[in-house]
């Protein structure tokens, strides 16, 4: 599968990429929502978007909504470490607004792969 990973934390991105590449998925990384959307516009054949929710520039909920608009059939996995005072329950919101799966950080490689399987 072609998977777009959007997270502002490079370590997290790298871990996800490493985990998924081992499973023979193609990974494209993006640092934030804006970049992610740009990639999506160029690369038509992306199957899954894995996106963090709390990011600078363009945060995840907004990104999910835009992705949904561009491509209603694309699969979305929302990941978040939660936290920061402000709107609560980001993952619940992401779930409601179009994420096909949500994962709470920290998660293991197994958990990540499991959620991808579930949405296939």
């Amino acid at each position, binding site marked *: 599968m072609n998977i777009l990973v959007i997270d502002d934390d490079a370590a997290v991105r790298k871990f996800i990429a*490493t985990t998924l590449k081992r499973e023979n998925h193609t990974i494209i990384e993006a640092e934030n929502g804006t970049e992610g959307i740009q990639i999506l516009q160029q690369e038509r054949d992306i199957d899954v978007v894995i996106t963090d929710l709390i990011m600078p520039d363009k945060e995840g909920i907004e990104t999910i909504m835009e992705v949904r608009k561009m491509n209603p059939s694309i699969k979305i996995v929302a990941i978040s470490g939660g936290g920061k005072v402000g709107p609560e329950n980001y993952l619940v919101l992401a779930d*409601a607004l179009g994420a096909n799966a949500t994962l709470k*950080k920290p998660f293991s490689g197994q958990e990540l792969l499991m959620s991808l399987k579930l949405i296939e």
Partner: protein
Amino acid sequence: MDQLFSTGNLEQESSALRNRLKELERKLALAEQSAENLSMALDATAAGTWDWDMVTGSLTVNAHWAAMIGYDLKEISPLTIRFWQEHCHPDDLERSNDLLREHFEGKTDHYELELRIRHKEGHWIWVLDRGKVFSRDESGNPTRMIGSHQEITGRKTAEEALKWSRAFERLTTTISNRFINLPSDEIDGMVQSTLQLIGEQVQADRCYVFQFSEDLTLMDNTHEWCAEGIEPQIDLLKELPTGTFPWWMQKINNNEVIHIPILSAMPEEGSAEKEILESQNIQSLLVIPLAAGPSPFGYIGFDAVREARNWPPETVSVLKLAGGVIANALQRKMVETIIQAELDLAIKLSATATFDQTLNNILRCAFKISGMEAGGIYLVDHEKRTLTLACHEGLSQEFIACTGSYSFDTEQAELILKGEPVYADYTTLGLPCQEAVRNEKPRAIAILPVSYHGEVIACLNVTSHKLSRVPDLACKGLETIASHIGAAIAHACQEEQVSAAKNNLESLFDTIDDFLFIIDQEGKVIASNAAVTSKLGYEPGDQIGRHTLEFHPEERHQEALTALQEMLEGKSVTCTVPLKTRTGELIPVDTKVARGIWDKQPVLFGISRNISDLINSERARLENEQHFRGLTELLPLPLFEVDTDLNITYSNHICSETFSYSQSDMQDRMQARDLCIPEDRDKFALCCGTFNDASCAVPENNEYTCLRKDGTRFPALFYSMPIISSGRIVGASCMFVDLTESKKTEEALRNSALQERIAQEFKSLIDNIPGAVYRINSSGASMLSMYPDALPDFTREEFQHDLLETYGIIHPDDRQLVIDSNLALRAERKSDTLTYRILTRNGEVRWIEDRKTSTFSPKGEFTGIDGILFDITTRIRAQEEKQKLESRLRKSQRLETIGTLAGGIAHDFNNILTPILGYAEMGVMSLAFDDVLHDYFSEIMLAAERAQNLVSQILTFSRAQESTPAPMSVQAIVNEALKLLRPSIPSSITIEQLIDKECRNILADPSQIHQVIINLCTNAFQAMEGSGGKLKIELNEITPDATMLKVFPKLRHRPYLRLSVSDTGIGMDEATIERIFEPFFTTKSVEKGTGLGLSVVHGIIVSCNGEITVESTPGKGTTFSIFLPVIDEKVASAIEDEKPLQGSGSILFIDDEIATVEMMTLMLSKLGFTIHAEKSPIEALRLYRNAPERFDLVITDLTMPEMTGIQLSEELRKINPGLPVILMTGYGQNSDIALPLDHYGISRLLKKPVKLAQMASTVNELLISNKNSSPALS
């Protein structure tokens, strides 16, 4: 022919003859041809031809001639001229004979005449008869005449009609002209002659006018014209009852023309009338109603007696016109009669001398106008509130006795005072009346209130014993009178009053005791009152014409004359020359006059007042004054009098002695001001002068420094009193009282009084200090003042003893402080302020502020301590509370900051932990189980999981942890938690539960509340672990009071669930309590806790909009109380069982799936909502933009091809920010709960498939809250 032969030349002749014959034959043939042609031509014109043999008298006519008059030719052949003569109209026959004669005599070329011939059927036809003599005998007499008849009836009739109608037009114009500007007294005559004119024109035998009585019950024949030989009927036809002509009257009243060409053909309804008409031999009849207004008042009639007549419609209409003219004229006559009556009245009123006459004239005029014969006038007396009959006529004495007066409260009076005219039948008025009134039998009555300046002042009542109804025309007339006589009656009333007033004045004039008189320009008496004649001894009238000088003594004539002349010149003088009686006695008088006009002549009005009494009293006054002066001389006080300019007019001798002046010095108009020193003079003048200007203030201090002539001074009091003469202030009496001696004594007194006053003021001052003032000196302690309520519970004595002497009531901890301070004050002169506690009798602590200062003698010896005590308990308590509040605020702010910080750190930590955990996992997975590195990676994973757990707790504290709030019951959770804890609680600890089972639910995440209870209970039993004790759990509902709201500003005045967990353990000190909710703050050993427990509890409670408090006493125990807002909602599972709520409102529903649209439309319509569904969000947006007021709420799907539900919601909110929007989504596994979606313009999120009950309750909730919070879109 024979002749011709005989003359020879036969052949020639015969040839000529033949030729001639031929020619004749040809001519004959031509003639025959011509005659035939002529005959044919005649035939074609349908003209009748005649050939009259005047020798035999036979008449030959053609078929046309016969047919013209309705005969067949054979029927009348053979004819003679006689037939023609018999059928010709007699009027025309004569003319025909004349014309024929003229023609026979050769005067005319031919005969021609338009004449009438009777038709076979009896009517006349018109023919044009033309003819010419055809042959004559030797003597020239005509023997034969031929001619033609041509019918011209059509033309003739038209000409006749034209002529007739012209004649009628002329007639109408003539009639109209006749009546224009005709004086009303000539109208009757003109009607008479007009009847003749019309009668002749329409060829009637009789022509007449009938007029109805006012009540339409009778009719009179008023005018009549009869053709020659017709019997007049007018005298027989008077006062005919209209009731005997019902059909007739009905027609007239309907304004219909009655036209009866043949009496026998009269309709059945008119049988009564027919009989009467037949008795008068009437054959035909035409009757035209006379009406000037809507209802006829009579009619004009035309009778045909000699033969029946059929009046053509044109005639009828012209007669109607003529009738109108006559009706107007007659009406005008009536109106003018009334106007004339009114005019007469006006003239009479202006000439009327008395009031009674005025009223009588008015009444008569009313009779004349109305045709009624009885009545009266009431006068309204508004003061006495009565109506009184002032004048009447035609009424019985009995009736007047009953109706002579009414008070305002009777129905009669009320009727009149309304001010509106009333026309009625007395019997139907319904007024209460006595027998005398009934016996009087009044019928028609007109009640006409008379107003003047808007007030009813009188009432004119007119009645009739005959008429049942007041005539319409009379109403107007009576109202006109009523409106005009108001002023006349008022004027007459006034005149009567003036006349009465004049009589009163005259008698007053005569009763006045003074001499009143009027003199002319020459000084002669014109009039005087009775006093002049009686007192001066004149006969009445005798004094008139005499010169005024005659009434004065001769020796003073000159003086009197001068005064008189001055008076005549208009000067205001008073003459004091006495009057002289007839017998020579003198009467002292003051005479004054005023100029005026009497009988249009300039005169003097004078009054002479007898002043004998005045003279006597003046004498007495002078004597009194003498007496008074004598007394003042004896007085030992300086007295003097001043005039209004403060010149001394009198002084007693003490006065001049006191001021070292001679009495004559003083009395020679010396200025009283000079008796004072210059500084006091203004005040003195003011004081003396108060009598000149009442408004100026009197100086309060009346002490002056007086100045003697020699310049020496002395203090004195000054008194003055105005001298009043003839009501005016003319000066003042003044007095000085020398103060020289008394001043000396006063000085001595003043010093002692001052001291006393100071002491008094001082005492009052300290008595009013809101505290207790004390003094400690060598003789002991004394409480100088004790402000009531300042220091409750203690008396002055208690304070004096227990506080100042034994220090017994001072808090033991503070006692030394006071003792030390007092010692220090004794050592040197200084002040000190102490704050210490005292204990009241019931053990209450009160705070005292003690301000004191030490006093020393001038020699430096300690003399005592002066102090003042204030109870400052309230202030201290307020300060303490403020500190508590500040500390709480500080604490919550700190926790907030730490929370934010911790939340941020936790988030980053989760990011860090992700690869740690992930790679460790990878490591574990990549290595064999027995590889040592496998163990290492496993350890990393374990540590990472611990870290993950810790971070999760920090997130909970910082309220960033995910939670799932739902309505929940705390009771159940408490039980559950205790069940879990009990095994780990040592037996030395007892558990007490005070759970109120009626407590309502709260909105929270049950697992979090579970955690709260576990944490608090664990803390509690850990605090009692060593010693044992009691763990108490209380659960109840409370509403915070004002004090609590002040300390916990986040709480509201609403019900809260209170959960408190108390222990009897070691307790905490203030410093510990201060930091207890901070993360990682712990008093326990590392094994027992992370230091996060209470911070997590705090985070959970605050995220539920609750509050947590802690009270603790070291060694005694700690109580944690949690306050959580209660809700009325039941636990979530219950919702599904509920029936969907009905509701109302207009909803815009958007979903791209037809199936969903159909289902939702059905569902929501069933619940009572109005629903408009759209498949396209773009279309929905356009619809809403055009009519935002149409919809109360929007429900939209999330995923739609054109635009997502969120984008749509954002656009809709731009139009109306208050619009509630429900977003439906098919994604997600989480249960549907209230989310903070406002940020995205969404009020609620609902997960598909949506349950009906859930949808209904969500929609209702939003509609209600929207209605309550924001007004609908304007």
